């Protein structure tokens, strides 16, 4: 097998004073969709922040396309073709949709190429075209999420890091966003690492997944394998048998096997 596009080895990182990531190792293969699942506070976002250079890992190595990522500033990481769409979208509220998108292409000075990319974005997200000259703050949550993804895509990333793209979106919008993520991966071969609490959706589009608990990986495997594990079904997909009383609140112990 070829070298993974991104390889993390024994990465430890702090979230404030807390050691949120306690040594994780993971591989992301070129052109794949990998998902990182975990409950609140499991350390998912910190992993993404460590990769994109927003937080400095205490320990471990991170190699992206043959380059060591350690010590690189976030902008240098972007320069390598690794784009991070943070949780909560973070679009520039007072800029228009077009300006937001063009900012995503700021590293490429080629106007023709930027125009071509813009056109491509309109195909993915027709709604953005309708609102091209509106300030981003007037967009709905789903539209802002689309804008944030589109803005990242304008940089023609090799690897796209998505932090909870479904957060706060209606089920219909969640479906749309995930369909687009799958399409981006299929069309341009963009490798995607998506962090999600919506395990159901994430496992639907991903080909491989890791489960993070308390800063450690407790399970990994092909998406279908994970979707079939009893622990994932009960704790992440919300499926469980209902016992003798037809309902129960207690949770059995997680075993991760």
């Amino acid at each position: 097998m070829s070298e993974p596009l991104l390889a993390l080895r024994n990465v430890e990182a702090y979230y404030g004073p807390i050691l949120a990531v306690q040594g994780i190792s993971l591989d992301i293969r070129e052109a794949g969709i990998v998902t990182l699942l975990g409950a609140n506070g499991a350390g998912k976002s910190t992993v993404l922040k460590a990769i994109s250079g927003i937080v400095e890992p205490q320990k471990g190595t991170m190699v992206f396309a043959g380059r060591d990522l350690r010590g690189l500033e976030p902008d240098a990481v972007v320069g390598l073709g690794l784009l991070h769409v943070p949780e909560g979208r973070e679009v520039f509220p007072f800029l228009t949709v077009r300006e937001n998108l063009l900012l995503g292409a700021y590293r490429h000075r080629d106007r023709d190429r930027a125009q071509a990319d813009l056109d491509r974005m309109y195909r993915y997200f027709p709604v953005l075209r309708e609102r091209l000259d509106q300030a981003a703050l007037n967009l709905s949550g789903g539209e802002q999420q689309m804008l944030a993804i589109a803005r990242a895509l304008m940089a023609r990333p090799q690897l796209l890091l998505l932090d909870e793209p479904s957060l706060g979106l209606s089920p219909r919008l969640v479906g749309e966003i995930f369909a687009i993520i799958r399409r981006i991966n299929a069309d341009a071969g963009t490798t995607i690492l998506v962090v999600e609490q919506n395990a159901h959706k994430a496992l639907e589009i991903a080909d491989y997944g890791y489960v993070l608990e308390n800063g450690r990986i407790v399970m990994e495997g092909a998406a279908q394998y994970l979707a079939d594990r009893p622990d994932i079904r009960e704790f992440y997909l919300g499926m469980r048998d209902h016992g003798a009383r037809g309902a129960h609140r207690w949770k059995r112990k997680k075993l991760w096997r």
Partner: protein
Amino acid sequence: MAQDWSAFGADLEIVPAPDGTIASAFLAAVARRGERIAMRRKDRGLWRAIAWCEYGETVRRIALALMSKGFSARDRACILADNCPEWFCAELATITAGGVSTGIYATNSPEQTAYVINDCQARVVFVENEEQLDKVLQMRAELPGLEWIVVFDMDGLAEFSDPMVISLAEFERLGAAQGAALESEWRARAAAVRPEDTAILIYTSGTTGPPKGAMLSHSNLIFQAASLNIVMPIGPRDELLSFLPLSHIAERLISLLRPIFNGAVVNFAENPDTVPQNLREISPTVFFAVPRIWEKFHSRATIAVHDGTGLERAAFRIAFSLAFRRRAAEAGGGTVPLWLRMAHWAADRTILHRTRKLLGLEQVRYVTTGAAPIAPELIRWYLALGVRMIQAYGLTETAGVASLPPPGQHRLGTVGKALPGTEIRLSAQGEIEIRGPHVFQGYWCKPEQSRATVVDGWLHTGDIGEIDDDGFLRVVDRLKDIIITSGGKNVSPSEIENQLKFSPFISDAIVIGEARPYLTALVMIDYDNIAKYAQDHAIPFTNYASLCAREEIRKLIADEVAAVNGRFARVEQIKTFRLIDVQLTTEDEEFTPTLKLKRSVVGKRHKALIDTMYTAP
């Protein structure tokens, strides 16, 4: 660190009288102690005290409710819960109502739970919460004799109603509403309990065949309480932490039964995961734990030191070597040089004290280990740390302790001498046999097995032992676990296993070799410490199984095994080993309630893995 034992034992209050019963002793204890604190539980982050009078009142209400429902003398009640005050109340309500109380391990499966309820023909079962209730309800069709289920904690059950299920609060209200007539009937019934009546059933884990309920009488338990008050005194100023399963005789005796006589305060751990934290909060004065816990604490301390600066590591090493030297000098009988006394004193005040504090053991007068074999090295380490560790030996069938060191006479590697008033001898095969008032009444409804276990008053323990010239007993191993190698030599697997477990990287191990050409081992890694080792050495892994698969980890364990092999003769050396790559929990059948791997279950479950160690490479 000479400790004054008498200060704690002197004010023993309720004297265990030979003609007394647990029922009458409990009522006397409540009457005498009133507002004094009996136990504490943590409630929304705060430790809340429960006085003896509250304890007694709850017991009274539950007992009256039981009787109003038609619970008769000698009827059985089961308790399916983690350690909590309600557990105590349910047991003593049952006992004072003349009944027989039976604990069920909270980690039991629904099937195992149903087995115990049926085997002892319980009419009532007390369950902790929704989760435990579901176990019983799931098996209800197979529990024809069960009449009521009393639930301690109704969280999540507000909408639920069932004619058989009643909340403890409602049950208590029912008890409180009973008139004076029933109350006096209850008191009369408690007084009518005879010492020879069965008080509790303790189900033994039963490695062969289904579990058996050992019948322990009031006089068995009273004798234990009386003997232990002489050799291992505990008093009302002592603080205990209750966290090992109450269904096991050791915890039952120490935290539930003995405090009736000695008035020690029982603190309940919030749950099994918070024990280290609760230990630091409570800082108990006496503490009992099984070897697994002691091994864990030892690993934690050594790993924490390893993480420190070079200076800290050196200081730790020096402190321990001073402690070892002082103990060696004392053991040699000579005088301890002044410089050593002073240096050790300084080390004890600083490094050793800090380590004790880290573990929550800075106030202990002494600690006890038992219920499973332990490596002498581990005891030596705790003694050097300044924690006075006593190794006791006992069985369910002796209502707890059978032997322990007489005060002031500790001999490492032995379990001391028979309890005063009891006898221990060895059979021709070296099997330990015990006689005395603590020997149980037999197994519930299993007369044949009872007759085979107690012959002419002598309990056949199934353990192999040695008794030295001064009468100190050393337990070698379980008779059926002794491995006879192809060379014809007898090997005690637990001795080798204990040495392996002493390593901070090995949490448990099973030595195999019966009817095999050489010895091998299945090893369970200590996940936390190995994960930390992997992090420190940049060994990538994702989860437990992948960690076990790493060549570096195999090598690490191989080094530990080689080090242990160096301490044994050739026939006792482990030729090869395998790692168990599944993270086992207490709910797995492989574990005994005292957190020991079950040889037979492990052997069966991992047969294929074992066979790979005996096939040509």
